[in-house]
């Protein structure tokens, strides 16, 4: 309920809760270096402040839906699926996505193999296609445990992989960026691409969950 700070308030229950922590509360070494470099480059006319703003806006506008579109196309077009698995970046460009120098490796889940992506060294992720990674993907806990005890990690995401199915972890340590092509949910046989896109969640592209099913 909105309230004002006046004397009539005195004595009432009055809880603001803890203030949320600011993300920009400390001028770290690298933050200072980034600001200095940016201001120099703008000062020298290499690019403008609006160029920087536009680049940040473009990166923030990339969403997992781009990846979902690739998956839905692959589910409905076997020839496209073959191209997607052979060269992910070329297939993404085919659908009109600007992926820059991204080298996209698409890994197919099957009834026999469940794949999971992690970057143990940092937080490599196909940002140019599906945007910024979730916070947990960058956490030390996920990065260390996904390679050490992937089945326990999957269980915590609510994903029970039967013992008869192989779990295959992909550690993204170098130049490739990984995206999972999940198994198409049962009961979607007659569905078209547009109907399938919303079933493909961000987490299913990382491999920690299956896509949504027809009941969800």
């Amino acid at each position, binding site marked *: 309920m909105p309230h004002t700070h006046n004397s009539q308030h005195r004595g009432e229950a009055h809880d603001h809760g803890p203030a949320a922590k600011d993300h920009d509360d400390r001028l770290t070494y690298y933050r200072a270096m980034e600001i200095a470099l940016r201001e120099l480059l703008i000062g020298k006319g290499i690019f403008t402040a609006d160029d920087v703003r536009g680049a940040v806006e473009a990166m923030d506008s990339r969403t997992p839906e781009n990846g979902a579109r690739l998956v839905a196309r692959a589910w409905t077009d076997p020839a496209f699926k073959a191209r997607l698995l*052979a*060269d992910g*970046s070329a297939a993404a460009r085919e659908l009109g996505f600007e992926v820059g120098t991204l*080298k996209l490796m698409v890994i197919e889940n099957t009834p026999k193999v469940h794949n999971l992506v992690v970057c*143990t*060294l940092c937080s490599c992720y196909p940002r140019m296609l599906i945007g910024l990674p979730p916070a947990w993907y960058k956490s030390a806990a996920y990065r260390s445990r996904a*390679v*050490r*005890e*992937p*089945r*326990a990690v999957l269980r915590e995401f609510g994903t029970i992989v039967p*013992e*008869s*199915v*192989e*779990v*295959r*972890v*992909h*550690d*993204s*340590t*170098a*130049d*490739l960026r990984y995206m999972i092509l999940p198994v198409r949910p049962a009961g979607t046989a007659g569905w078209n691409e547009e109907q399938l896109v919303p079933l493909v969640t961000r987490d299913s592209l990382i491999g920690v969950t299956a896509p949504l099913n027809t009941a969800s």
Partner: protein
Amino acid sequence: MMGEAAGARFAAGESVTVRRMRPQGHIRTPRYVMGLTGKICHVVGAFPNPEELAYGRNGSPKKMLYRVQFQQAGLWPDYAGNPADTLEIELYEHWLMPAAVKEES
């Protein structure tokens, strides 16, 4: 597919052992695979060496990049899960040697 695989020392299916090296500075091989043996599953191609790029150099000569598959049970002696579970990781050629070769220590 991506990159040029000509001149690769190892072929898909070959067993390789990851060198145990502790060079100073930026490396792209995590410690948990060092000294262990896996199998090449994909010759990706040659890329500018990121261990050089990290210092503002031009990354030449390029290094051949592979995806190498390990058995989880071989990585972690107490691995809990299906013994068929695997891990695949990108490793550069200078980190790999034929599995039969014993590394000088």
